[in-house]
């Protein structure tokens, strides 16, 4: 049944997310084209500069807007299918709340990751448009640039495969944590007799504040322990980067676990559809 829930979750959500993904890639390609034709080495009229500035501003706003819209879609979809009239169908299917929450979390995570990756690709296209005219020069300088980046990362103690993998896993768990925080807050809001949306918003704010306080306290503690060390070198920096990532990962895993188990428990034991 989990597979069927996932299949239908994809079927009913793909359209708006596909529009977001296509918009990101399309604007990236347009941006790349504009960057390519922009006469970098010549004096350009003021209005062209203003136009370019407006387009860059619009592009950045679009990236932010799509990121917000993606999360809004996730939140609205969850609320609508769980706690409005559609919940009558969701909760009379012969499936468990665990399967429902798992399917929604999985599909939402995939969409949000797809949006994040597409945003990177879109920005990458624009960057490519800027450098492609000087491609040969760039290729000649590439080893030097890569070395500089590598050296910089080594100085920070971050240039290891393990750190890179840890960084990617932390980002992934962070996305799942964000989604489950929304789910948990909406589920808590349903415990209110009235004003359930307000309850959800307040629950989200409270969860967010608690998580931020804990994250800040732990991060400051780690930073102070590093600063207290006698010598700051590559080894201590690597320790700092690694510790920060691990702490972030562990905190995100705890957020995921609380959000996941909490949402399932509320829908399992406290469901009260109006």
């Amino acid at each position, binding site marked *: 049944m989990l597979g069927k829930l996932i299949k239908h979750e994809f079927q*009913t959500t793909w359209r708006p997310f596909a529009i977001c993904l296509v918009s990101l890639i399309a604007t990236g390609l347009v941006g790349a084209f504009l960057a390519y034709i922009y006469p970098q080495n010549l004096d350009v009229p003021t209005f062209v500069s203003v136009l370019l500035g407006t387009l860059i501003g619009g592009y950045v706003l679009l990236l932010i807007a799509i990121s917000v819209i993606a999360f809004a879609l996730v939140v609205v979809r969850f609320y609508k299918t769980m706690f409005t009239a559609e919940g009558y169908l969701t*909760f009379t299917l012969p499936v*468990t709340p665990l399967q429902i929450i798992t399917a929604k979390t999985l599909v939402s995570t995939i969409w949000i990751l797809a949006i994040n990756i597409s945003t990177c690709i879109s920005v990458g296209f624009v960057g490519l448009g800027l450098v492609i005219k000087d491609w040969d020069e760039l290729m000649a300088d590439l080893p030097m640039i890569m070395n500089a980046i590598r050296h910089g990362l080594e100085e920070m103690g971050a240039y290891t495969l393990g750190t890179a993998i840890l960084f990617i896993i932390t980002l992934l768990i962070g996305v799942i944590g964000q989604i489950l925080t929304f789910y948990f807050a909406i589920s808590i809001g349903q415990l209110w007799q009235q004003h359930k949306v307000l309850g959800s918003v307040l629950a989200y704010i409270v969860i967010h504040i608690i998580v931020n306080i804990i994250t800040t306290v732990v991060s400051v503690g780690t930073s102070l322990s590093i600063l207290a060390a006698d010598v700051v070198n590559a080894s201590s920096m690597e320790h700092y980067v690694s510790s920060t990532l691990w702490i972030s990962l562990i905190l995100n895993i705890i957020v995921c676990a609380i959000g996941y188990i909490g949402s399932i428990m509320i829908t399992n034991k406290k*469901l*009260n559809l109006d």
Partner: protein
Amino acid sequence: MSNLLSIQGLTKVYSSTPALYNVDLEIGSGHIIGLLGPNGSGKTTIIKIICGLLQPTAGKVLVDGHEVGVESKKIISYLPDHTYLNDNMTIHETILYFMDFYEDFDADRAYAMLEKLNINPDAKMKTLSKGTKEKVQLILVMSRRARLYILDEPIAGVDPAARDYILNTIISNYDPEATIIISTHLISDVENVLDDVIFLQNGQIALHSSVDDIRQNEGKSVDALFREVYRCLEN
């Protein structure tokens, strides 16, 4: 005879107001039962608890021996008292959805009923009128070969012609081994199809009897008895 539905000491309290209080009920297979009562008598509350949409404050519900959960949901076909399907899906997509999740769903039966009513399966739910939506929902619910059908106000808010169609659909798709619980306050419309009636008043069962017994012993219709019972309770 093992009971299809067994309810023991069922209580539901909203804030401090009891919607159901200590309800005991046993229902077997092969009946069409009217769950009757005025607005606010607890009809929808008891149905929502049986279907797993509400958690009881106290008491126990067993459906064919199973507590409310996956196993009970497999054998209950439930029609809520409002539209509950995804408006952005077509009827055909909704049928595929039901086919995927309910092993007992008979798609041929659904398409035959749609054709009979000249409803286009490719139409999106949001393009349908309220009455057509309700008919589609009833078709989907009655196209399952379930053990227990629970229909919450299936004829409220539709015109008399549609009422006839709905009642006819219920009767013509009725499996004699199954039980149908019809919740309504429009008693005279459903009286002729009922085997038994349950009167609910202020969250408690005021009467549970067969329609034949009411007619024989009381010498009156269910509708007439209903009016009498509720008048007595109100005084």
